[in-house]
């Protein structure tokens, strides 16, 4: 690939997903990035450089959120891509698909208030040492939206301890001052977790929707850009090395 060719990032579409268009649009607000739609029945990843699994309600959230999508034909190539170090980001339902696929630790259960929660949250970046937060500083507070019913992250205590030691807790719910506090975590998720990565830091899932906060002129603000920008920068630097 030459420096002039666009970076190609795949947006995976399962039946019932509804933020594929937003995600496609968000990616293409970055110069030199081309978003490629990947259909759930596709047998390969069309040689994309990175993957984003967008949010929605794949297969109607039947059985468990993400449980059916996880067995779509596109998933084995994604699992192989991740195993080779490829960058994969899952947003909301995409996060649920990644935990169901075993690409991320833990699980996502019903919000503690039993309600679909749709609101802005404050996220604190807990580590800048991932390909998805490299453009952040640890402690940065970002304001973006959540909109889900099953975002209550849970994981076995011994796994949580390992994740903390290994820098896998990427973003937490905090108050506007950037502090963990009562009322700041709208889902009841364990340890106020909003997003995690895998052991090798190349797979990242988060419940909030950065793709809805990419344009400063619009109501959503632009705080979500930093996750995509970090991913894009990481892919470009890998390209330079190659």
């Amino acid at each position, binding site marked *: 690939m030459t420096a002039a060719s666009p970076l190609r990032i795949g947006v995976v579409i399962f039946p019932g997903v509804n933020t594929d268009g937003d995600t496609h649009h968000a990616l293409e607000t970055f110069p030199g990035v081309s978003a490629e739609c990947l259909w759930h029945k596709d047998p390969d990843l069309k040689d994309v450089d990175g993957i984003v699994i967008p949010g929605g309600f794949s297969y109607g959230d039947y*059985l*468990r959120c993400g*449980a059916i999508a996880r*067995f779509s034909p596109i998933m084995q190539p994604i699992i192989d891509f991740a195993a080779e170090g490829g960058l994969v980001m899952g947003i909301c339902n995409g996060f649920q698909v990644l*935990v*169901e696929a075993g690409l991320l630790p*833990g*699980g996502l*259960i*019903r*919000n*503690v*208030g*039993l309600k679909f929660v749709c609101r802005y949250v404050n996220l604190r970046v807990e580590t800048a040492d991932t390909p998805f937060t490299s453009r952040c500083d640890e402690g940065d507070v970002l304001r973006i939206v959540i909109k889900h019913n099953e975002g*209550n992250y*849970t*994981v*076995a205590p011994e796994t949580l301890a390992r994740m903390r030691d290994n820098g896998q807790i990427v973003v937490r719910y905090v108050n506007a001052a950037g502090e963990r506090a009562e009322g700041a975590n709208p889902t*009841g998720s364990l340890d106020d977790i909003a997003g995690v990565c895998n052991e090798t830091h190349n797979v990242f899932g988060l419940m909030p929707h950065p793709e809805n906060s990419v344009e400063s002129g619009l109501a959503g603000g632009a705080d979500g850009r930093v996750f995509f920008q970090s991913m894009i920068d990481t892919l470009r630097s890998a390209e330079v090395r190659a």
Partner: protein
Amino acid sequence: MNVRVFVTPKQGILDPQGAAVERSLPNLGFQGVSGVRIGKIIDLSIEGAGSAEAARAQVDEMCRKLLANPIIEDYTFEITEG
């Protein structure tokens, strides 16, 4: 063979639905209720599994792979001839 699979929230993991029901029962006059857990039942039939042992192995694999998520759920099942 008829199979009934019971899927429940894993022991030790909070069940927000069960907790809500547990809080509402005393309001109806039912005292002393604890440990409410809400799960689901999945009924299915299988043919050609061969022995009962083979059927159990097959259903167990179904549960582990799809019907339950062992990270957040426990499961049991019953198999009856039918």
